[in-house]
């Protein structure tokens, strides 16, 4: 009975093996082509802003990165490393070399240098604009590699395709958004891939690569603390669930030592790599894994009875030592007021921390918790597929799939705290959705294949055990094809709707450069508001190189990059007192504000005003934050003084403090004569939708020098001091120079 079957099986076996290797090769080629297409998709879906507007850098932070890259390309890396910037935070300056994450600028600078040495004449701006789409293609390929390690190539391709399209990632990596996250997400996924690869193979070579990829991540983004806390958490999870193996040791221990060293090499991190609480988890788990490794080793070489004796001995002695060490550690950590954590990390752990203690962090719109619709806007249908992916990871549960589950759980928590961290959730959601979709396809296609094989097996003598397993799939027999078709159609629809949604999101929602605004006029034509660039170019052409410009910190980077003038405060927000000084000046009456600005050598004040065109992100809407931040440092500024019955108003019912403060006066000066809207002197503010409270006033200490076409940016100059003061000191009639002393004026200094 056996021999005819084996004779039949013999030739088919070799033919089967040959066809299998051919199929594998064919599959490899197809996978490669699909990956190339995914890269092209990721690159092109981010090009909408370049097509719709122009190749320009967006937002605020990218302008700083662009300026730093310009400096790097002009002066070389040694000058960049030692650069002290005196054009911002006047009079303090800023140590750029020590406070910037260099990964992004070094990457773009290297690309520019390589491309130019090949005689392809790309400018620095072009390289900066297109860095983000290129690295998003790389990130998709890294997601393919990571998911392939967890589940297989089919899941990998699906995850890569999803990551290329997911709107949350598109929003931070469109062409022109030259910010740290553009390269950091690629570094994040790549580091995770190398960690999983080391865990699966136990090879020290991949462990080295893992440490180097982690170094690139530390260079790129402050979010690297996520990696150095997630990996120890996973190691601890593996140990606790009894999955300790020597591969785990090889994956983790060299990473900690090499990673800490490499992290201390980056000047921004420096000694924080060993001194702050963000890294303590890695050291603690480092010690724990050594203890566990030693325990397993001793268990391996001893007999069970002896091992029990050893355990009792070690437990009794070790417990006492442990308690002593932990007591010392707690004392050291508790002695610092923030328990060793930085402000931003504390905001993540305790979401109410920032609003109580650090108003600057609380005021940034990216740091607010997200709303439910933003989840569906940003990761769309993946929100439904993620739970299915989590279940698929449990069948079977391996080290790598437990890591992915931990990754998604922690990133969901953190994305719930800060909307900016939806970006960290995006790769996790794509990986899990890829796993879910690919598992669904696997089950259904396998059932079709088994149905065919069942038909053949019925003719032969059926072996009892095998049919038991096959029968599990068979009851779907009649409807399995229908189900598969349904899933195919559903996948088509999903992909289509996801595609359509992603493309729409990329084109409409996330491509706005925010330095150029557009609106549609009544006849469907496009009206462009280019006021910001108009104001900056006026500044660069009509003021001296050394003139200082005061504005709110939002516009600092753009002013230094485009207008090339020194500013007082910029988006780095590292000095709260300096920002509070500017906020106090904006909230004070004209005379006090003039004095504060004069003491800081300011020549021009820049104010953004949206009341004529209806631009909602202007300084009057941000004014309460200026009051709060200023009031946090200078107690004579009190927020209730600016509110009438707890409401923020600028109409006739506003408080006199509000109507007299500098921000009100600079924003609404002459706005009752606006010819555009023919308001006949009524002074209607289109954003607040009321008439303003105080009209027809004159400025005594400032003079208006420039207002842009749509009144969006208004620039004022500080009037020089008067030569002769009427009434105060009649004796001293000799003329004084402009830079005469303030104390002659005899007023109270708000700074004392």
């Amino acid at each position, binding site marked *: 009975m056996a021999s005819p079957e084996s004779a039949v099986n013999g030739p088919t076996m070799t033919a089967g093996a040959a066809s299998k290797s051919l199929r594998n090769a064919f599959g490899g080629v197809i996978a490669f082509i699909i990956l190339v297409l995914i890269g092209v998709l990721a690159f092109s879906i981010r090009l909408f802003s370049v097509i719709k507007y122009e190749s320009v850098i967006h937002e605020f932070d990218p302008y700083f990165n662009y300026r730093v890259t310009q400096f790097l390309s002009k002066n070389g890396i040694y000058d960049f490393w030692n650069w002290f910037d005196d054009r911002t935070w006047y009079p303090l300056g800023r140590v750029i070399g020590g406070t910037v994450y260099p990964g992004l600028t070094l990457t773009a600078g290297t690309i520019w240098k390589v491309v130019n040495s090949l005689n392809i004449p790309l400018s620095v701006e072009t390289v900066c604009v297109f860095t983000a789409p290129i690295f998003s293609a790389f990130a998709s390929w890294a997601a393919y590699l990571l998911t392939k390690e967890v589940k297989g190539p089919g899941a990998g391709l699906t995850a890569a395709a999803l990551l290329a399209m997911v709107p949350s990632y598109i929003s931070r990596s469109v062409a022109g958004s030259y910010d740290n996250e553009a390269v950091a997400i690629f570094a994040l996924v790549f580091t995770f891939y190398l960690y999983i690869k080391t865990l699966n193979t*136990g*090879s*020290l*070579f991949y*462990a*080295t690569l893992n*440490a*180097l990829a982690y170094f690139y991540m530390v260079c790129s983004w402050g979010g690297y603390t996520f990696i150095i806390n997630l990996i120890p958490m996973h190691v601890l999870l593996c140990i606790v669930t009894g999955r300790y*193996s*020597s*591969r785990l*040791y*090889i994956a983790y*221990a*060299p990473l900690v*030592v*090499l990673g*800490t*060293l*490499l992290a*201390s*090499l980056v000047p921004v991190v420096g*000694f924080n790599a*060993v001194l702050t609480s963000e890294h303590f988890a890695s050291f603690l788990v480092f010690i724990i894994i050594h203890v566990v*490794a030693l325990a397993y080793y*001793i268990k*391996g*070489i*001893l*007999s069970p009875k*002896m091992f029990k*004796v*050893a355990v009792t*001995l070690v437990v009794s002695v070790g417990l006492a030592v442990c308690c002593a060490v932990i007591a010392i550690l707690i004392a050291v950590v508790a002695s610092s007021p923030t328990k060793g954590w930085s402000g931003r990390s504390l905001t993540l752990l305790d979401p109410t921390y920032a609003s109580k203690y650090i108003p600057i962090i609380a005021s940034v719109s990216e740091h607010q918790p997200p709303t439910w619709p933003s989840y569906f806007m940003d990761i769309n249908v993946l929100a439904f597929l993620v739970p299915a992916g989590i279940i698929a990871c449990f069948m079977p549960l391996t080290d790598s799939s437990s890591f992915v589950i931990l990754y998604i759980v922690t990133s969901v928590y953190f994305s719930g705290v800060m909307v900016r961290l939806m970006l960290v959730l995006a790769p996790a959601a794509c990986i899990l959705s890829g796993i879910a979709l690919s598992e669904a396809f696997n089950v259904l296609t396998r059932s079709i294949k088994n149905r065919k094989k069942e038909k053949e097996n019925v003719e032969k003598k059926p072996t009892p055990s095998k049919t038991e397993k096959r029968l599990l799939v068979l009851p779907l027999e009649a409807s399995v094809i229908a189900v598969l078709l349904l899933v195919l159609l559903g996948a088509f629809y999903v992909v289509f709707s996801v595609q359509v949604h992603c493309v729409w999101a990329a084109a409409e929602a996330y491509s706005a450069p925010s330095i150029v605004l557009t609106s549609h006029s009544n006849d469907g034509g496009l009206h462009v508001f280019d006021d910001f660039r108009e104001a900056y170019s006026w500044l660069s052409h009509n003021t001296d190189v050394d003139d200082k410009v005061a504005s709110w910190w939002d516009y600092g980077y753009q002013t230094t990059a485009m207008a090339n003038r020194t500013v007082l405060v910029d988006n780095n927000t590292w000095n709260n007192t300096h920002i509070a000084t500017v906020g106090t000046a904006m909230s004070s009456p004209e005379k006090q504000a003039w004095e504060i600005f004069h003491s800081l050598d300011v020549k021009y004040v820049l104010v953004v005003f949206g009341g004529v065109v209806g631009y909602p992100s202007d300084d009057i809407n941000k004014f309460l934050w200026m009051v709060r931040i200023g009031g946090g440092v200078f107690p004579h500024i009190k927020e209730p003084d600016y509110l009438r019955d707890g409401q923020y108003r600028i109409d006739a019912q506003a408080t006199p403090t509000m109507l007299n403060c500098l921000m009100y006066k600079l924003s609404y000066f002459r706005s009752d004569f606006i010819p555009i809207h023919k308001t006949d002197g009524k002074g209607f503010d289109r954003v607040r939708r009321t008439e303003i409270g105080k009209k027809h006033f004159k400025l005594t200490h400032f003079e208006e020098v420039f207002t842009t076409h749509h009144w969006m940016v208004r620039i004022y100059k500080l009037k020089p001091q008067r030569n002769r003061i009427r009434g105060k000191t009649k004796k001293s009639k000799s003329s004084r120079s402009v830079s005469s002393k303030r104390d002659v004026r005899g007023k109270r200094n708000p700074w004392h």
Partner: protein
Amino acid sequence: MGRSSTVKETQALFQSLRSAYAATPNNLKIIDVFVGFAVLTAIIQVVYMAVVGSFPFNSFLSGVLSCIGTAVLAVCLRIQVNKDNKEFKDVAPERAFADFILCNLVLHLVIMNFMG
């Protein structure tokens, strides 16, 4: 009565530990000696820092971390070369040693850079 039995048990434990360890092959024992030497050097550096003070901190960090790093990498090498480990049956010891050398190269390059 109980105390003497625990003392006897501890003695028996150490005996069995010693006899079990004596059975390990020689190349693994050499690696263990190397690990012990690295850890001892690290401890000496820490004691020296406690006596003299931690300035400059980067030199201290690089010294201690280079010792601990070498110890960790040697333990990884031992894991991969040990014939009792079933997971690493198909990894040739030469490959394991080459990986060890590469990782050490990277580690010491970083140390040289960081030492200041």
